[in-house]
């Protein structure tokens, strides 16, 4: 298949996937456009007070640049709180804890990221977020298909199997959940530690077959 020379998309046309219970919505840009040299995504918050950048460190060493594309956000950058209106860049080194909450409705952030000194590798979480996003929207079948695709892309990553276990647990499929969790633990024993604290598995925890 011949790749197109260029692609065009407006923020309003991007897919929307809810990420958490704080209102964070992920709008995939890199996936939509087929960008390979660096990561880029948009995040939107429907109302003031909703989260618009997840609070996190970049454990895989990515530098990240955020642009407030629309609205206004309150960023936390290390110990600092920043009022960021539309047109503001916020740059975070990998070790800096960062996050943002919308200060106006319809706030949109565009994020760019990559790791210095190495070719860009597409983040494994993207496919998992698609799957879990579908589930949050009540699209279980689409979510299951997306999770299978995410696992097929990275068959040796424990995170795919682990999140598939969460997915199946949340949809009440005990056998599938346990099978995926067992596979995740085989790939990396630290999956067991995560499962021991993960509320997604609460209803399965006392089952004799539960592997964590």
């Amino acid at each position, binding site marked *: 298949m011949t790749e197109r020379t260029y692609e065009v*998309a407006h923020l309003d046309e991007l897919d929307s996937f809810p990420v958490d219970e704080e209102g964070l919505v992920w709008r995939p840009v890199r996936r939509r456009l*087929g960008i390979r040299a660096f990561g880029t995504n948009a995040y939107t918050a429907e109302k003031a007070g909703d989260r618009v950048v997840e609070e996190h460190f970049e454990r895989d060493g990515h530098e990240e640049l955020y*642009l407030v*594309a629309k609205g206004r956000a309150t960023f936390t950058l290390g110990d600092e709180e920043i009022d960021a*209106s539309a047109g503001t860049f*916020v*740059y975070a080194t990998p070790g800096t804890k960062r996050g943002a909450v919308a200060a106006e409705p319809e706030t949109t952030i565009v994020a*760019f990221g990559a790791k210095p000194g190495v070719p*860009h590798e597409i983040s494994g979480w993207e496919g998992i977020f698609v799957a879990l996003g579908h589930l949050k929207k009540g699209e279980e079948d689409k979510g299951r298909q997306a999770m299978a695709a995410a696992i097929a892309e990275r068959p040796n990553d424990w995170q795919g199997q682990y999140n598939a276990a969460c997915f199946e647990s949340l949809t009440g499929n005990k056998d599938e959940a346990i099978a995926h969790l067992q596979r995740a633990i085989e790939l990396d024993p630290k999956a067991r530690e995560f499962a021991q604290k993960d509320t997604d598995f609460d209803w399965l925890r006392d089952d004799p077959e539960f592997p964590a």
Partner: protein
Amino acid sequence: MSGTAKITDLAIQISSGPRWAMVRTHFGIGAFGVNAYVADEPGIAVIGEHDELGDLAGRHEELYFVASGHATFTVDGNEIDAPAGTFVFVRDPAAKRGAIATEAGTAVVIAGGKPGEAFTPSAWERSAPALNYFATRDYDKAIEEFERLRAEAPDDPGLLYNLACAESLAGRATDAVEHLSRAVELDPDFRRLAEKDSDFDPIRAKPEFASAVAGESDPGGSGA
């Protein structure tokens, strides 16, 4: 170091055309290219027409994001209406691309890199620290900075070209002609740029200038 900045505060006027926000160099980003251009009036070429194949370009795939205002992009002859919030991703380094602002205050952010390779800054961006002084018309300081940068890259034609611009504007005609001639010798594509560049107006009447710019083509590379 982590930090924040507004596009409009970073964007400086270096020559005629859009203001340039040197985003990557401002924050010291090493993993990908990123810059922004701001057109204060409609009709300005907010993204100069270029491809990513020239000696100064990085063969990058480039993502353009219209952060404010409204622009008309042209990619390989196809016109794209791009209001604020539009992404235009140009995958093919050979594609000719450019954009004209259709509203005042149009800002376009560009991110770029080469798939499968660790990011290295494009050669054209080497001049960035010295170009900052153009905004304050402190051309002597710019020349000092260019000379410092030349110690690292003596035969960088883009750097020599920009040095010649600063020397022309500082009234150092002989030096300007010498460095412009050297830039054109290393990369004949600079001839056409020099013909239209108002930075050379102070020396344009000199016969030495005319002999340095007798040619045509495009230097390319004006992005991330």
